[in-house]
């Protein structure tokens, strides 16, 4: 569909996929591979968060579903003795399954109430990870020594996942799947209906759109991808703590998404990339980093409230206006 100006979906996806291949070609340094892997995780999280925001609501519990996926996978692998690969397929489904009742409750309300309900859920789940089933979830000291992804058996050998490079490729593959699905949906009928719900939910409803079902579907699918990221996170970091899924990382996801622009599917990509680079440049600042994020957020909201992706359009608009004004001024001088 050519319904949106700007980047075509295939081109955008191609650029992202190409950039992902370029990273290990440019560097094998384990530090930079780590940074790039984290970046890909954040991209899946912000793309799926923005996907949920496309119906007009901000889910503050998005990162909780990453936690559900992470803890579920650790339990499946270490307690039930599953292979990592089976868990990679099932644990995100657990996150999606948990999202069904949560979404059913939260989606009864909208706007600030939805924000508050999901925020409450974020805290409840973090406390659950921290205080309940301590034997299984590790309690306040967290979980450690989580096994790495098991070697993937292939004909004539197996791929191991102990090094940074194979881990990067694994996350890259997960990212490609998530990005393909979410970008494709954005440019399909699905995305059109989501934008209709965001603009005027009552009108969408009187035109026959079952908006509750729709929003729930979006919520569950977004949670699935958060859960998928969680599985990778658990087995690549090898340690889990409830605070990984608390308010601070959640706020960062929102900041990435909003700075890039929540209106466009490319917004979270731009926001996440820009802030990843910024945070590398400001590495010496350590935890003052969040102050910088705050400042960047304020400036972006003042200069272009629709996010960095709206900048080219705004500039073009301003230039045409200036040219028109100049033409008018010239015309006025020429006129008798």
């Amino acid at each position, binding site marked *: 569909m050519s319904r949106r100006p700007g980047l075509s979906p295939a081109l955008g996806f191609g650029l992202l996929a190409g950039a992902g291949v370029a990273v290990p070609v440019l560097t094998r340094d384990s530090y930079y591979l780590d940074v790039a892997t984290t970046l890909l995780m954040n991209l899946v999280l912000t793309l799926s968060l923005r996907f949920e925001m496309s119906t007009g609501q901000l889910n503050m519990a998005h990162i909780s579903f990453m936690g559900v996926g992470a803890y579920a996978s650790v339990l499946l692998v270490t307690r039930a003795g599953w292979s990592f690969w089976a868990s990679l397929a099932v644990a995100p489904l657990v996150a999606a399954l948990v999202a069904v009742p949560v979404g059913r409750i939260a989606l009864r309300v909208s706007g600030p109430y939805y924000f508050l309900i999901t925020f409450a859920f974020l805290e409840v789940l973090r406390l659950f990870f921290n205080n309940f089933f301590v034997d299984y979830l590790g309690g306040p000291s967290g979980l450690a020594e989580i096994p790495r992804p098991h070697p993937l058996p292939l004909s004539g050998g197996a791929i191991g996942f102990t090094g940074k490079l194979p881990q990067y490729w694994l996350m890259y593959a997960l990212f490609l799947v998530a990005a393909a699905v979410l970008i494709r*949906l954005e440019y399909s009928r699905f995305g059109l209906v989501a*934008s209709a719900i965001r*603009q005027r939910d*009552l009108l969408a*409803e*009187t*035109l*026959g*759109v079952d908006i509750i079902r729709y929003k729930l579907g979006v919520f569950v699918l977004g949670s699935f991808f958060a859960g998928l990221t969680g599985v990778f996170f658990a087995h690549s970091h090898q340690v889990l703590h409830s605070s990984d899924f608390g308010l601070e990382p959640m706020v960062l996801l929102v900041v990435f998404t909003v700075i890039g622009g929540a209106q466009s599917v490319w917004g979270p990509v731009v926001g996440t990339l820009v802030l990843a680079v910024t945070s590398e440049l400001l590495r010496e600042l350590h935890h003052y980093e969040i102050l910088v994020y705050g400042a960047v957020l304020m400036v972006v909201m003042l200069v272009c409230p629709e996010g960095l992706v709206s900048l080219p359009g705004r500039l073009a608009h301003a230039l045409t206006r200036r040219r028109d004004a100049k033409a008018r001024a010239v015309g006025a001088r020429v006129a008798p």
Partner: protein
Amino acid sequence: MLLELRDVGKRFGGLHAVTGLSMTVASRTIHGLIGPNGAGKSTVFNLLTGVLPLSSGEIVFKGARVSGLRPSEICRRGIARTFQATTLFRESTVLENVILAFHLHAATAFVPTLIATATYREKERSARTRARALLASLRLLDVADQRAGNLPHRDQKALCLAMALATGAELVILDEPLAGLTAQESADTMALLRTLRAEGKTILLVEHDMRAVMGLCDVITVLDHGVLIAEGTPRDIQANPAVIEAYLGAEESRA
């Protein structure tokens, strides 16, 4: 009867917006609902389309009860509406607005949408073709790719109507379809509504332009303070003293 309201009531706290309203709308008619400001006309529309829940009574459409259903389900059964304030997806293009209104007939399941199966692509193509045809019939094809929010008022009104029609509804409920239009634009819209009736649609409308209502409607129902005070042909209504008293104002009845 296409539509039947049985003893319908709506209370907002202590305020009785609609009380004991029973009326019927016959198939293939243009039915006017009139009354002074605050008579409960818009409330009736909101009850009919499931936007507000009923306090009492029931609404039956094509022999089946529709009161208590969600707005999307009521639309599915064949009732579509426009809103009093022009209500559109303002950031979307005109064509997208109409495609969205075709949603019911063109929607595909999630997985076929995701992988763009042949069925999905075919449905998308057909929705676009039908949307373009509908826009052409309402003289909106030239602006099909503009943002709906940037259209002039007349075109926005026409687009609202196009969207209600795109749902394929048998009963189209129009809240002030002529408001803010010039005389010529009004005449065009009225001609269009008559054409729709001839094509088999049933139209229920609220309108303040009395000359238009009297010229256009087959049957008129008059509400005052949420109560039905008269019903009949335009001629009956014009001669009804209760209507003149309540609606046209006490001064006129004294005169």
